[in-house]
């Protein structure tokens, strides 16, 4: 009985030792992340938002924004979905406001080529409140006169000393990715919402994997550079996917007209190259103004 008690105690101590060892090994992980799910649906007990039928009045006014992290969350102590605690973080240091703007401009540049886009507003992070949900999007809609918003979120994980697998939580569910030493895994996710109807139109992720090979001495700098490169590569991948998803969405509009109402305004018809306009240019307008002035001058003399 006494031997049995000692065995249990020994097993407990060994378990604690392994737990501590595992924790230490897994701690070489850095994570920076924001989530569209956390932003749009911050309170799970709230009633589920039932989307209406979107009325897409072309051309659309589009907003692009990075979703903020949930309120009160310290990104430096964020937890990996696998349950391990990162030893260092840095929060939004991974993606500064300027870097976010640059990425949003890249997405905007890609969207601008489409005739169904009237204009694109780059929305600074400060305009979006953590967990602001659709009420916050309604404010953006009124303030910036938007029809549709592209919500961008990111998830970047950097491993420094242990082989792991980890999980991205996307709007479409979990995505499990294996990891190696000094790897930088990045995912950018673009979710396109019709604000008025609260309907998600389509989404497009972009991923990047950079295999690091840095020595311990310059590891910090190397990881920072890899992190930056990861965002750039993920953006390229996401933009390419956006084009593909957009093409699929157009097909969906044709196949399921009962789900989406599309109104093509004269302005869209003009932009899409299907029409011509009877319009005066500055030269003609000046000619007419001169003629009008002549008539009025004569009237004044009568």
């Amino acid at each position, binding site marked *: 009985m006494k031997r049995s008690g000692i065995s249990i105690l020994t097993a407990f101590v060994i378990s604690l030792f392994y737990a501590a060892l595992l924790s230490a090994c897994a701690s070489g992980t850095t994570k920076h992340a924001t989530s569209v799910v956390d932003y749009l649906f911050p309170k799970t007990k709230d009633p589920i938002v039932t989307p209406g039928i979107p009325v897409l*009045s072309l051309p659309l006014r589009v907003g692009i924004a990075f979703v903020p992290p949930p309120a009160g969350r310290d990104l430096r102590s964020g937890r990996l979905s696998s349950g391990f605690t990162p030893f260092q973080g840095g929060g939004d240091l991974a993606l500064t406001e300027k870097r976010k703007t640059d990425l949003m401009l890249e997405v905007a540049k890609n969207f601008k080529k489409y005739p169904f886009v009237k204009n694109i507003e780059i929305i600074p992070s400060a305009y979006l409140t953590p967990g602001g949900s659709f009420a916050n999007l309604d404010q953006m809609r009124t303030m910036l006169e938007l029809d549709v918003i592209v919500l961008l979120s990111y998830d970047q994980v950097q491993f420094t000393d242990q082989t792991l697998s980890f999980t991205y939580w996307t709007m479409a569910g979990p995505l499990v990715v294996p990891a190696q030493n000094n790897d930088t895994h990045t995912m950018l996710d673009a979710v396109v919402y019709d604000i008025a109807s609260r309907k998600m139109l389509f989404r497009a992720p972009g991923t990047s994997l950079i295999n690091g090979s840095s020595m311990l001495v310059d590891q910090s700098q190397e990881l920072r550079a890899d992190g930056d490169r990861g965002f750039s590569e993920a953006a390229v991948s996401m933009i390419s996917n956006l084009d593909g998803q957009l093409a699929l969405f157009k097909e969906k509009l044709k196949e399921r007209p009962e789900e989406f109402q599309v*109104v*093509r*305004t*004269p*302005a869209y*018809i*003009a*932009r899409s*190259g*299907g*029409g*011509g*306009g*009877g*319009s*005066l*240019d*500055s*030269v*003609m*307008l000046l*000619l*007419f*103004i*001169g*003629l*009008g002035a*002549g*008539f*009025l001058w*004569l*009237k004044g003399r*009568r």
Partner: protein
Amino acid sequence: MVKGPPLTAPRLPGWTLIIAAITLIVFFFPALGNLLIYDRAAIIHGEIWRLLSGNLVHFSLAHLLYNLVAWLIAGTIIELYGYRFFPVLILSSSILIGITLYILEPELYFYAGLSGVVSAAVAYLCLQGMGEKGVLRWLCAAALTGLIAKTVIEIRAGSSFMLLLHEEDFVPVPLSHLAGIVTAILLFSLLRVTPRLRQPAR
């Protein structure tokens, strides 16, 4: 020359303001624009009012403002001077522009803009003004010559000054301007050769 009464009290340019108000309403209600725009496919399917109403639709605010400013200048002066048959000019030029585009521009699926009717009004104003005395006669002759020359050059070149100036992102259709000018010349000629219609307005 079909001359109006002497200019005593200013008269309200009613037709000019009515057309201006309609174009503004149509612009700010895109659904109405969809119903009125010159849409070749819809015209083929019987919606023939679009031949006429396409002139009241505009693609952009700049497109609307340019046309509207020119329209207000030309229309107001025509009505202030009491030049007759202005409503006839508006209606006939709108119809002729639609028919001309339908026949001569089969690849034009959509058309919008008041500039064809504005061109008709300006040409009509110039023709009437050429009957006035003094400098105005020569000013009108020069303006009409310039208007016709510019329109013909644009049609022959298949381009326009507007494209050179990058003022709009749609294809300009100078044929509508020519149709408007031709309507004005036809109406003016008809008034000249029909003595009964030459009676001045009272």
